[in-house]
């Protein structure tokens, strides 16, 4: 053990003396002896955990894992006593500890992380519903993928100090420890400011929109938009009073795309399963996309996207893959910089004009094997080439993503329409001018449409 383990040998000796015949007996004895021992530990929690705290209540108690990690073994007694777990007792989670043989602990711990991951089984025993929710989350997917930073139960909830509702306080929300940039943006938003300045504010903290445990990749569904509507009741009806096709806007435009001032907007074209729109196209295509990503830095172009969809939907494919487009802000922090509604975008030209920056930045995304969204850069022509009628059928912003070929056809139609009239008048003049017109052929006086009278007649 390290040098910081002050008095550990003495404590271990005392505890061993108190634990000869099992955990309960030891706890009972400890209760009788504790007042006379004068331990320098934290104030002990309610019994029968004082035996444990007899050692673990000492600040600085720690152990070295096999990988060199230092595992802190100190449990602040007072904090634990006040926590929601205080009444459960140590053994409810640490049932693997044989009180008759502990201390010393001979169990080798591979790493602090592996120990914590293993302990989530203890959490699951009581919090089955929350654990099941977490198990479907992006966080759990990352854990399974071996990400050492992905949060497990104890990363957000201090098991020895958890207090109900603590995470609901804006300054104590655990998400900020990993998502610092997002949290900073949120703190400055209309929601964050409301919580800081109004005592009776009901503005959401992170879990209010993202849920605490069932956190999903943002690209997989309508979660955040639905979350907005959860508090802002009647918001669709209010938008309908001024916004044409408001329901469609709600489906394809994320709330921050309009409610974040000066946001950079982009289009995300998600590849989804046509049979089940809530589910991503899992496990397929990622290597194919990697191979298709062009090296010139322009990203996937219209033809490449079409070829990819043809490959996905080849004969015998299990489900049909389609593209669902969505207008959103470019980055996570921007998505949280929501402003007061007075600052929201209400000028249609922001998106419905040819030069809208929103349609110059395009990503094509799908769900990778670990459940995370994988985005690939795409060139803007995936939205305005004629082939987009087939590939991006469901996403269209009037003006902003119009097909260039149709513009050319319109110009040709105007030129042809004018050309027919002008050409016809010219031919009439030409026939008269060079004597091909004969009024005695039976035509009426108004013909041909050149107007100056036939040259032949003038002669």
């Amino acid at each position: 053990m390290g040098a910081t383990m002050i008095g550990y040998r003495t404590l271990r000796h005392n505890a061993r003396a108190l634990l000869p015949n099992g955990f309960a007996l030891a706890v009972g004895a400890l209760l009788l002896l504790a007042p006379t021992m004068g331990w320098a530990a934290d104030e002990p929690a309610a019994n029968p955990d004082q035996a444990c705290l007899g050692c673990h209540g000492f600040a600085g108690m720690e152990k070295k894992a096999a990988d060199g990690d230092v595992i802190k073994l100190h449990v602040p007694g007072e904090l634990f006593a006040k926590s929601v777990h205080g009444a459960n007792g140590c053994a409810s989670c640490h049932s693997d500890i044989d009180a008759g043989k502990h201390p010393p602990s001979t169990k080798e711990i591979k790493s602090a992380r592996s120990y914590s991951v293993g302990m989530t089984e203890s959490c699951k025993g009581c919090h089955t519903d929350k654990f099941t929710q977490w198990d479907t989350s992006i966080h759990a997917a990352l854990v399974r993928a071996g990400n050492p930073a992905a949060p497990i139960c104890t990363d957000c909830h201090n098991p020895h100090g958890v207090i109900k509702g603590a995470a609901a306080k804006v300054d104590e929300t655990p998400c900020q420890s990993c998502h610092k940039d997002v949290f900073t943006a949120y703190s400055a938003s209309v929601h964050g400011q409301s919580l800081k300045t109004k005592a009776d504010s009901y503005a959401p903290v992170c879990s209010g929109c993202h849920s605490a445990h069932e956190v999903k990749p943002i690209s997989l569904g309508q979660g955040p938009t639905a979350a907005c509507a959860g508090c802002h009741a009647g918001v669709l009806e209010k938008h309908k009073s001024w916004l044409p096709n408001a329901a469609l806007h709600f489906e394809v435009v994320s709330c921050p795309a309009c409610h974040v001032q000066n946001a950079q907007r982009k289009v995300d074209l998600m590849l989804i399963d046509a049979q089940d729109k809530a589910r991503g196209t899992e496990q397929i295509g990622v290597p194919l996309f990697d191979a298709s990503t062009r090296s010139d830095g322009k990203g996937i172009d219209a033809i490449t996207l079409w070829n990819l969809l043809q490959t996905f939907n080849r004969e015998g494919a299990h489900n049909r893959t389609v593209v669902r487009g969505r207008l959103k802000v470019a980055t996570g922090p921007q998505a949280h910089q929501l402003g007061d509604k007075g600052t929201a975008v209400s000028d249609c030209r922001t998106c419905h004009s040819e030069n809208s920056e929103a349609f110059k930045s395009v990503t094509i995304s799908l769900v990778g094997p670990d459940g995370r969204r994988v985005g690939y850069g795409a060139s803007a022509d995936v939205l305005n080439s004629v082939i987009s009628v087939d590939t991006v059928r469901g996403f269209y912003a009037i003006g902003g993503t119009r097909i260039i070929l149709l513009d050319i056809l319109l110009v040709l139609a105007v030129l042809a329409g004018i050309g027919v009239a002008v050409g016809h008048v010219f031919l009439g003049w030409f026939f008269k001018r060079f004597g091909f017109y004969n009024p005695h052929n039976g035509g009426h006086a108004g013909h041909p449409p050149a107007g100056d009278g036939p040259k032949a007649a003038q002669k």
Partner: protein
Amino acid sequence: MARIYLHPLPVRIWHWTNAIGFILMIISGLQIRYVGLVDLFSFRAAVTMHNFVGFVLIANFFVWLAFYLSSDRIRAYHSELNPKKHFIGAIRQIYYYAFGIFRGEPNPFHATPYNKFNPLQSMIYQIIMMLLLPVQIYTGILLWDVQRFQSQVDFFGGVRVLDTVHVLIFIAFVFYLFVHVYLGSLGHTRTTHYKAMITGYEDEE
């Protein structure tokens, strides 16, 4: 010179309502599609106008349909029931407009109240009124409220497919408008057909 009553009042009202409506739809459609390039009024005002005039034109279409379905003048749209003769007549009319008219040849067609469209006109008007306009109305209604008609939008392949069809027909109408107005000047005099569509009576040579 004879005067014949070619265009009954309901047809004239329908025609000029259609004419004004088409122009407003084209202007508002251009404003909607080319924001920034066209700046006659706001995008939102253009959408409101496009929707309102669109429904007026839909009602107007049914006025036209009701009039002709309840009138024996419906024969004007297909006075020649023999497809071969109709087709040959259309070819003759094309020849006349493309060549004969410049040589001073007589118009192969003479209008009567029950046969007021030449074979080419008849063919084109039937395509417009029974195919292009209904498709334009239908796609326009679906695009007016995509969510309300989501299942139909999906059935036809998505909003972009519908919009493309809507714009293609719009482009065809823009071309048609130029040609229609110009061909209107090829009557007995430059203004014969225009006046007839106002008074109902057309002078015959």
